[in-house]
């Protein structure tokens, strides 16, 4: 052993020596670079219980004055499921002088939408660091439950020279890993064995900085990462599955609901009974119960330790009138069961997660809970957290996702939630205008169906009076900013459709020069400035739902005038999307309709060029102006 040491030392020196040059060479524009990010995870198995410990360390070299200022505070995150065991941090001046940290604090680390949880952030200052300094952070966290391990991400806000994940586990455990993300070809895997311990090593070098776009899906859809988990445990010759199949996960999950809602609650039962009285079918009963929960139980989430996994009793949720997703699933299930509608607790990952139960049967796959019901052989997904969701249509953030439906203690189903087709989500906007003394005036009518309707309903639930009017003015504005609306009305035609109407005056839009009127019929130019940053952007674009939209303007031709120039119709479609623009003129009116479809929930980088091609065809159309002459 002793002999090895100098060699090792020399190698280390070489490595750091070349690293300093690599930083500038590899990433000339970077404000800072991680020279090294290492995570070592070790799994332990004792009497059937599997735990783990992670040791993490990072070195961030700062390459500008700004970065030195911006990164002068470091953070370590932890919670009851990854408990902070020990940590250390320090700065290194450009001359490699060690700089102590200061002002250490531990604060709550809350997500905006969760009212309370137990995750914490320990933060500290790196005094004296400057351009050329390095900040070093390392810490050890204990994972009391190996079901709840986080994946390892190779992408960061700053580029990384060397990134490494090392997982060590006793040979009695079987470990599985899965690569996710766009740059998995950069990952190099190796395996080693020492006595009865196995080590998997995953390395990546020269990882570019992550790209951040507001319209991107969450990073699990594209960032390069490794998901790893214990598949089975061997003890005394017997192999016990740990998380080898969705059934193992179901067994783990089921413990969280096993004892739930076993007591009857007269208050909840009487509400349920009065709601369902006279309902002619299970469907009608379910519809009424869902609507009541949507309207009466507000979303407030407390996630302290196991509270993050175990739903609360339906009776408590009912009297409190608030709860998180699990609590809403609990009250829905209890009420529906009371009404004899088959109803099941259901785990699901929202669209912010990119995992499936078959590939990674882990708690990581889901982050949400809903209630599934079975009506006439059809599964319907009821999400209590969406206060305007239309009965029968899944909430938009679970479209296309796998649901783990709890049928019984040993019985579950994995069902893929349907994606409503674009025809379900229609947006039809028409404006009818004529000339008046104050410019154009007329009426508008917008018909919204599917997610368009539920989205609007949800918004209107929280707006009345002037606020509602301001919302309408903004959302349905058109022409220019001098447009004035009056008589806003929003009406539900049926559960699926809403119609919004108003009167409007639009001054200074039509232009009259020398006894000729010029009117650009494109009251909306939605896609102006929507070119995708191609080929630079490598990150997909997420859309809320599939849809079809049309915008029509009809103009009454004033007495004594006739159309002297009407632009030509244009249609352009490729494999990604497209548009159509049609003009129509007769003696009384001239009209134009724009039509667009959204055909995908996730637009991948390979489609960006085609997306932009459509815009190239579209923009000249925006500039076409109608001429009315005497």
């Amino acid at each position, binding site marked *: 052993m002793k002999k090895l040491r100098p060699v090792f030392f020399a190698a280390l020196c070489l490595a750091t020596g070349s690293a300093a040059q690599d930083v500038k060479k590899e990433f000339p524009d970077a404000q800072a670079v991680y020279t090294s990010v290492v995570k070592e995870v070790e799994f332990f198995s004792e009497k059937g219980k599997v735990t783990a410990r992670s040791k993490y360390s990072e070195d961030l070299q700062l390459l500008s004055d700004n970065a030195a200022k911006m990164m002068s505070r470091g953070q370590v995150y932890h919670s009851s499921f990854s408990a902070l065991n020990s940590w250390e941090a320090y700065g290194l001046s450009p001359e490699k002088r060690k700089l102590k940290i200061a002002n250490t604090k531990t*604060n709550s680390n*809350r997500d905006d939408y969760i009212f309370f949880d137990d995750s914490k952030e320990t933060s500290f200052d790196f005094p004296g660091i400057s351009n050329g300094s390095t900040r070093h952070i390392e810490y050890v966290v204990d994972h009391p439950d190996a079901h709840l391990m986080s994946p390892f991400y190779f992408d960061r806000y700053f580029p990384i020279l060397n990134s490494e994940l090392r997982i060590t586990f006793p040979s009695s455990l079987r470990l599985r890993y899965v690569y996710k993300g766009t740059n998995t070809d950069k990952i190099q895997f190796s395996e080693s064995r020492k006595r009865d311990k196995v080590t998997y090593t995953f390395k990546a070098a020269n990882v570019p900085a992550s790209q951040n776009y507001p319209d991107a899906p969450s990073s699990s859809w594209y960032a390069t990462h490794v998901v790893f988990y214990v598949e089975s445990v061997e003890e005394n010759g017997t192999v016990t599955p740990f998380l080898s199949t969705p059934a193992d996960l179901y067994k783990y999950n089921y413990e969280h609901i096993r004892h739930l809602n076993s007591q009857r609650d007269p208050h909840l039962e009487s509400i349920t009974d009065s709601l369902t009285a006279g309902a002619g079918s299970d469907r009608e009963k379910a519809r009424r119960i869902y609507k009541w929960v949507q309207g009466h139980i507000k979303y407030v989430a407390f996630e302290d330790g196991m509270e993050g996994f175990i739903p609360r009793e339906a009776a408590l949720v009912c009297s409190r009138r608030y709860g998180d997703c699990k609590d809403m699933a609990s009250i829905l299930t209890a009420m529906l069961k009371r009404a004899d509608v088959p109803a099941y607790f259901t785990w699901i990952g929202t669209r912010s997660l990119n995992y499936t139960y078959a590939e990674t049967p882990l708690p990581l796959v889901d982050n949400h809970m809903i209630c599934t019901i079975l009506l006439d052989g059809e599964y319907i997904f009821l999400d209590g957290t969406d206060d305007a969701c239309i009965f029968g249509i899944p909430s938009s953030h679970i479209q296309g996702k796998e649901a783990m439906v709890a049928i019984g203690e040993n019985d579950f189903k994995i069902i893929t939630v349907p994606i409503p087709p674009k025809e379900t989500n229609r947006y039809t906007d028409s404006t009818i205008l004529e000339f008046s003394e104050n410019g154009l005036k007329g009426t508008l009518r917008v018909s919204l169906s599917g997610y368009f309707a539920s989205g609007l309903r949800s918004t209107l639930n*929280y707006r009345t009076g002037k606020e509602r009017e301001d919302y309408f003015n903004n959302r349905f504005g058109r022409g220019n*900013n001098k447009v004035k609306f009056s008589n806003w009305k929003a009406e539900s035609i049926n559960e699926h459709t809403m119609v919004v109407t108003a009167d409007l005056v639009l001054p200074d839009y039509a232009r009259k*020069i020398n006894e000729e009127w010029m009117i650009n019929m494109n009251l909306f130019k939605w896609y102006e400035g929507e070119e995708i940053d191609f080929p630079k952007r490598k990150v997909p674009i997420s859309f809320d739902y599939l849809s079809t939209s049309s915008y029509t303007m009809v103009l009454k031709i004033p007495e004594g005038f006739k159309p*002297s120039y009407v632009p030509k119709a244009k249609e352009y479609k490729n494999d990604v999307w497209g548009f159509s623009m049609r003009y129509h003129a007769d003696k009384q009116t001239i009209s134009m309709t724009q039509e667009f479809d959204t055909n995908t929930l996730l637009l991948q980088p390979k489609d960006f060029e085609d997306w932009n091609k459509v815009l190239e065809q579209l923009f000249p159309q925006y500039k076409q102006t109608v001429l009315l002459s005497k």
Partner: protein
Amino acid sequence: MRILFAFFLLLSASLSHGQSFTRLEWTAKPVMIPVDEEFAGDAAVMVAEKKTVEFVIEKEGFFVYNTVHRIVHINNDKGIEYFNKVYLPYTRGLDVVDVKARTLLPDGKVMVFDEKNIKEITEDDNVYKIFALDGLTRGCQIEYYYTVKKYASLFGREVMLGRFSVMNGEFQLIAPPHLRFEVKSFNGLPNATEKLVGEKRVISVSSGKMKSGEEEKYSKPDANSKRVEYKLSYNTSNNERQRLFTWNELSKKVFESFGSFNDKEKKKLKELLEDAGVSDKMNTEEKIIRIESYIKKNFMYRDDISDDDADDLVGVIKSKLCSERAINKLFSTSMTVAGIDHHIVLTGDREDFSIDPKFENWNNADNVLLYFPQTNKYLAPTASIFRYPWIPPTWAGGNGVFCVTTTIGTLTTAIAEVKPIPFEAYEHSFLNMNMKVKMDEKQEALVIDVKQLYGGYSAPNYKAPFVFYPPDEQKNFLKELIKFGTNSENILTSGFENKELDQKDPYSPFVISATVKSTQLIEHAGDKIIFKVGELIGQQVEMYETGERVADMDLDYPHALVRTIEFQIPESYEIKNLKDLDMGHVYKENGELTMGFVSSYTLSGNLLKILIKEDYVRVHYPLSQYADFKKVINAAADFNKVALVLQKK
């Protein structure tokens, strides 16, 4: 100002302790209070709100108990969402004395909140108790109160009207009789009344009904908020006549806190000046600029760092990381060591709270400036993107407390002079644009040479992204700026002048120039071409609204906007509607311009020259000038819609 905390403790130690604080008791059974018709459409209404501040001297020290008691009627779901979660801030180590909450449902049922459900979180160093209220439905009435115990601060303010209307509001300050507090009402709240109740002095303000308003453009809602402010003015057990906590006293304390340094610190400060390259050959202004540039480049100030670090400048100079007090002290002492005469000036912020010469609320003296009598200009130590003589503009335009140093014998101290902090001359602050526009041969695009010039108070916010953002984001920001007016991201070339925050001549403008190809400013109607010339000045703020206005008009700083457009009309075309370019609304007082918008043009041959001038000479325009102000603002917004029609000759 946090630096003053130690002095409060001194004061409290000198007092003997006496009464205990009066706990709030609510009625045994809540009663549904009817809501006035005019509030029926609001999400929620404060049927009653009472804020009590009680000062109590106890064995352990001098404390204040802040109690808030609210009865809120919930009208709709938005009201529920707003009130079903409660956050109570309190001081670590002290306590939330009481928290009680109950909900009265429309059917008369009462749900009482169980204190066990309170959770605790820490955020940005503040500790909060948080809880959710049970059972909320439309039409219910919630009632809650809490009392938080804090170390006494002898200054304070309570805003009495926030986002929800109040049907019945009350403020009460309770103190031992020998401590005479003064309470001042702002923005239309009735004046305070004072009486002795038993052994306590009680000062009250009853607001009556207050309707919450919409935020208006060009207004300062915080500064206009209905509020009370209070301060301790006399301690009659010591001296009935001696006014406490005067501006003079503050001035003295500030001087002691910022002005003094020991020999070790002096040595380090000298080294710092050397590092910065300050030499005796420089004149005062050059020295000021050099020192500011050096400290702002090398030191970082953060307001979450404890002010105690200022007691050790040697440590601060080493760590380069400092608190608000430390950076102010570092600036002041560096100037002193460099032999530069200066006064420390304390100022408020026109955004929210300002210095009142007669009512010395030290809490309003929130911001620190240095004033240099020799040059008659200012420097803001904590404003990292501003450079002498430019300071955050909302810190100017109101009163400042000038700590003027005087030496009596061997003792140097400072006395206060309260006077306005003037702006730099208005014409130095501008957002100007010069554009030369040509149509390409196919008549489908415009080639625009554009220069954007940012001067004075305008410049720092435009420069900062080019200093602090990573390269990619800088490019995006540049694109956004150039797109404003040209409507194009197709930038052929671009460049900067005076991009750095530090400038030899602080009056030199920041210039962005670019050549841009834009297709969106022209439209086609048969063989006619529509040139949307108005869009070249960019989308403008509009005040097309017709409703009644409540607040005066307030701007951040006086400024001018000058835009010039030169357009080469293509040979075979002519423009018949040039007179659409003539617009103007100019207002003067006593022959001097106060505000205006004027656009005009000249045509020589095929060269069309347009000049658009917009001026706001003042920062404050009274409500009586609303109609005129609107005309000026809307003239710019109207110009933005002007289009020229080119037709074949």
